[in-house]
Each structure stands twice: as structure tokens, then as C-alpha cells.
């Protein structure tokens, strides 16, 4: 019979040089690995996708397995803005302010058809996708998406967090992208 201990998997270590008593790799990779496994999400839940998120946080699906069990209800401490649900045009400035209050580096996950494109609400009062007011990193399709899909989205975010260059947020491309949204 296989020993229980063998079933525990340890996260892969980044590429580097290993010897007796030391392991050398680049700082960027270490920081990326640390950030990836301790993302603090800010749930901006406005409708049914928010209900799916509750299931995602619950014991059955458990986002804690990805190091994201600590939700931050202050944008200033959050790393990831999870927008889940229909955003009315009147809510637009509020969402934008929440995004602006977040400290760099920050990521945005757009969960569900409504947040991504307005969904079925093609109407004068609903914002036709949050990417009209804030930049979005990952879109999760679905109406509403299943918890597995939300987890998949979070894992895509993790991938971005892990591989992001430490200097990306200082780059002129990034600043130009923010400027496009009128955020300086």
C-alpha cells in the first residue's frame, strides 16, 4: 500500500541553481510565486454571479486551496477585484472608484456575461461590459458561470500574477493603457 505521505504534493519550485544548502533563482520568480499564492480578492458582487461566488468560497469548492481565502473588503488591501454581476451605469463611477483605490499591483477578474458584456441586459441603464471603464485581466463567461469556471478564472489570474515582470507596472505601455481609461 502506498504511504499517505506520498500523496501530498508540494508546489513546484521555480527554475534555478541548486546545490548543497542553497538554492539560487531570480527575485522576480520568488516574488511571483509568493504573490500568486496569497491573492486577496475584493468581491464586488451585485447579482447571481455573486451567489456562485459564495459556493466558490464554500467548503465544497473552496477557493482557500488557491491561497485566496482572505477576502479584503477594503480596496486598499486587495490585489484582485472580482466583479460578479450586472453593473448598472449608475454603479459605474462607484466601481471605478473602487478600482482607483486599489494599490498596484492590481488585477481584475470579470465574472459572468453581465460584467463582461452587459449580458442579456442590452438596455439604456446597464453598462455594456466593465472593460468600458476599467481594464480587465481575465473574463469568465457564463450566465452564471459554475464555481469551477470561477476557479479556472482565478487560476488564470494566478498565472498572470506568477509570470508578471516586476517592472511591468512602471512601463510606458502600462501607463498608456491606464491613460486610455482616464486613470493616471
Amino acid at each position, binding site marked *: 500500500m502506498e504511504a499517505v505521505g506520498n500523496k501530498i504534493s508540494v508546489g513546484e519550485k521555480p527554475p534555478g541553481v541548486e546545490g548543497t544548502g542553497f538554492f539560487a533563482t531570480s527575485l522576480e520568480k520568488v516574488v511571483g510565486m509568493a504573490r500568486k499564492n496569497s491573492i486577496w480578492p475584493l468581491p464586488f458582487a451585485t447579482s447571481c454571479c455573486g451567489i456562485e461566488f459564495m459556493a466558490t468560497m464554500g467548503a465544497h469548492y473552496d477557493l482557500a486551496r488557491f491561497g485566496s481565502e482572505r477576502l479584503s473588503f477594503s480596496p486598499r488591501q486587495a490585489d484582485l477585484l472580482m466583479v460578479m454581476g450586472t453593473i448598472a451605469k*449608475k454603479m*459605474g463611477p462607484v466601481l471605478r472608484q473602487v478600482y482607483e483605490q486599489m494599490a498596484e499591483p492590481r488585477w481584475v477578474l470579470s465574472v459572468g456575461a453581465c460584467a463582461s*458584456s*452587459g449580458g442579456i441586459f*442590452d*438596455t*439604456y*441603464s*446597464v453598462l*455594456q461590459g466593465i472593460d468600458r471603464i476599467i481594464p480587465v485581466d481575465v473574463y469568465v463567461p457564463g450566465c452564471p458561470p459554475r464555481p469551477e469556471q470561477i476557479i479556472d478564472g482565478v487560476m488564470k489570474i494566478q498565472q498572470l500574477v506568477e509570470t508578471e515582470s516586476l517592472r511591468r507596472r512602471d512601463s510606458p505601455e502600462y501607463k498608456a493603457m491606464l491613460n486610455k481609461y482616464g486613470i493616471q
Partner: protein
Amino acid sequence: MFDPADENVIAILREKYEDQVLLTEKHYDFLTITLKEDKIIEVIQHLRDHEGTKFQFLTTLCGIHHPEQGQIAVMYQLHNMYNNSRIRLKIYLPQEKPVAPTLTGVFAGANWMERETYDFFGVVFEGHPDLRRILNVDEMTIFPMRKEYPLEDQTREDKRDEMFGR
């Protein structure tokens, strides 16, 4: 068509405001009276204060657009809580210039309802203490529930006809 309670309300209304009543009808078991718009506030106050009617609660108030008639109606729904009877009053305004007197002097609760009616239909309630948009964004330039304005958001580029086989 009318039951005795309805007849009573109509009689009380006609007794004082015979010239104001344009039409009395019953829709879906609901007494509906169409009135001229100039004395509507007086009429509602009369129905509220009269011993025989006691319509002391304003359930709702809203606009209705009739583009084929070029008119915007304002509907008032009143409730008599003593005997649980309801009444619906309607006035018709021209859609080019829909102006109605405010009901806020009679029912303070009409304040937000009139703001909503202004927001969606552009009905101007003269004498309203704070007539501005209530539900839509302040920057909105249209009155979205009027039929001449399309429901859909007009800024979408991804809804081209070919994608829907049109």
C-alpha cells in the same frame, strides 16, 4: 359593471366635480376614472378628505406613453384602508409639453414617485420641491420609457445584424 361601492365613489366625485370627469370605467375589477388635468390635485384632496371615500393612501403614481395619441398619461392609484377599496385616476397630457401640477402638497410620498415619472417620461410637475432624476444617471439626456427612444444601449458595436442572421 359598477358595484354599489363604485357607484358611491362616482356619485361623490360627480357631486362636486361633474365637469372634471371625462370617463368612468372598470378594468380588471379596478375602478378607473379619467379626469381633466387642471383640477386633479383638488379632486384627489377631495377624495382623501371626504367622509364617504377616505382614499388616504397614495399607492403609486406613474406615467404611460400613448404615442399613437401623442399623449402621456399620469396615473394615480389611491387606497382606502378603512374598507380596502382602491381607485385609479388618470389624466392625459400632450407629449410635446407634459406639465402637471404636483401632488406633494397632498401626499408627501408623491415626491419620489413624481421624480421617477419625470426621470422616465419627462413629465414636469409644477411646484415640486426637488424635481430631478432619481433612478437614471444624471448625465442622461433622454426620457427612456418614451416609445421614441430605443430600449437598447446605442453604443454597442458588437451587435451587427449579420451576427443574428438578419
